[in-house]
């Protein structure tokens, strides 16, 4: 396996705030690499630097063997990008957008028609290709952007939140396309997401990112294995009492309150269930219900950060108002 992306202490600060902090990661050729983290974790900043849109404050990276600072043009020729926000010309037809892209990336004129036809087929937009894109639905626009990112046969395809704002059915479709594209074109895919299931379903390896740093990096299966066990979900009218019960009295440190329930990660879940209920009853705590499930990536994130990704919506709103402020200025 060769390394298609390598970063060397890649760092970016904005007005003294460190968005990406001395990042050292490498992406193998042919894999789907997921960057998972809450909004504001530094995922888009990382991708923007790898795509030569942003210059790093310090450190550097190599994409397809080219330095992102010194050889930006070669990097640009090696990559395809699907941005988080739409980036199509909706006054042109789908096909016209694709032709423009092919010309901007220097695809030989005699190959353009064939390549465009084949990517249109891949994302099932052949019959809408000659309609103005303003008549497309959100999901169709997204699919066309995916197709567009492939026309120039990039070595690496960057997908920044590829299914943000799409309905569940369309998300399923887009996931299918991403898998197919990777197989059909033998490319490396780097995607950012804050959807757990997306990272889990798509990625060969996942880097969990928080506050500009990678806090865990492995295959989805291995990441979940690090939790060593099952998650017990306890519902009670006094979750705080249950929390102190399991952590102090029972010595189970990996316990958190999630959505008003207490979730405990334990080694042997099945034998733990009766013991928890018993101990609770002894201490006059009434357990309303108790259940068991396999750990997911949310638990992994919780394990490493002590927070849930979704609980960070306040931070997300903070981020949005920061953007709004920047625009007003």
């Amino acid at each position, binding site marked *: 396996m060769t390394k298609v992306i390598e970063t060397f202490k890649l760092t970016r600060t904005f007005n003294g705030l460190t968005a990406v902090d001395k990042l050292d990661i490498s992406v193998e050729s042919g894999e789907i690499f997921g960057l998972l983290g809450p909004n504001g974790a530094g995922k888009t900043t990382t991708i923007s630097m790898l*795509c*030569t*849109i942003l210059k790093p404050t310090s450190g550097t990276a190599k994409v397809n063997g080219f330095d992102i600072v010194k050889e930006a*043009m070669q990097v*640009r*020729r090696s990559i395809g*990008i699907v*941005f988080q*926000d*739409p*980036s*199509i*010309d*909706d*006054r*042109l037809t789908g096909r*016209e957008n694709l*032709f*423009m*892209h092919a*010309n*901007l*990336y*220097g695809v030989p*004129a005699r190959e353009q028609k064939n390549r465009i036809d084949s990517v249109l087929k891949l994302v099932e937009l052949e019959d809408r290709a000659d309609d103005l894109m303003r008549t497309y639905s959100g999901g169709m626009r997204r699919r066309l952007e995916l197709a567009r990112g492939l026309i120039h046969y990039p070595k690496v395809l960057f997908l920044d939140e590829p299914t943000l704002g799409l309905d569940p059915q369309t998300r399923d479709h887009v996931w299918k396309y991403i898998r197919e594209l990777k197989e059909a074109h033998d490319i490396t895919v780097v995607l950012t997401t804050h959807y757990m299931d997306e990272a889990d379903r798509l990625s060969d390896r996942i880097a969990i990112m928080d506050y500009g740093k990678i806090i865990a990096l492995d295959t989805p299966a291995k990441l979940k294995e690090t939790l060593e066990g099952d998650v017990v979900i306890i519902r009670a009218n006094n979750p705080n009492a249950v929390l102190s019960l399991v952590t102090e009295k029972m010595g189970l440190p990996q316990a958190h309150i999630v959505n008003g329930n207490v979730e405990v990660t334990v080694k042997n879940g099945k034998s733990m269930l009766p013991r928890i209920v018993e101990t609770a009853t002894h201490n006059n705590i009434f357990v309303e219900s108790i259940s068991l499930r396999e750990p997911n990536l949310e638990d992994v994130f919780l394990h490493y950060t002590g927070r849930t990704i979704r609980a960070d919506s306040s931070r997300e709103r903070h981020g949005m108002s920061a953007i709004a402020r920047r*625009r007003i200025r």
Partner: protein
Amino acid sequence: MTELRGFYTLWFREVKRYLRDRVRIISSFFQPLLWLVIFGAGFRFSGQIGGLNYQEYIFPGIIGQALLFTSMFMGISVIWDKEFGFMKEILVSPVSRVSIFLGKMIGDSTDAVLQGTIVFLLAILLGIKVDPITYLAALPVMLLITFGLVSIGLTIASFMGSLESFGAIQSFINLPLFFLSGALFPLTGPGIPEWLQIASKVNPLTYGVDALRTIILGEAWQPLQALHVNLAIVGVFDVIMIIIGTWAFTRMK
């Protein structure tokens, strides 16, 4: 080769989008029509300028006005592209900013010249005498005039974040350039205050309008400068504005 194709595709996009916008093309008939018919006919009886009736006198000026307003307005496409995200697609492509700027600029200039052509068609309808050869001779001059003006619009737009602020700045520039160009009335000779004469002399559009008059009115017009001097001044103005515009696009994120 990649650069050339990038340039071509950006030029083609501007022209295609313009031709598709029927509302804009149809509405673009009206403003010059109002100037030529109401303003031109209204002042026709108030006297002659250099042996020409007023309608004939302002006809080249109205072409200059159409070129000016359309060119400056074209900057709006940069703001649209920023707003709708398409600018990102262009800016991260492996095409140099010089080609990106030139493609957009010359595409917008082409649109502006098409707008100028519409004024020619109106003139024929109004009975002003123009023949096809005059039009063909005026074509490259119109193009030369628009290069610099489009570059101003694109440069301003590359710094602006919203349509509103662009519109406000644009009207600040459009009207002085128009009124001080001699498009509607002569700004040289006795009786004209000296400051007005100076202001008109530093206005690049003055030379563009004079060149258009020389070509369209022929012998009947007594030019301010020889045609080649006018064209050289407009050309220098173009080069300066293109350099500034390219620089503005290079620093755009």
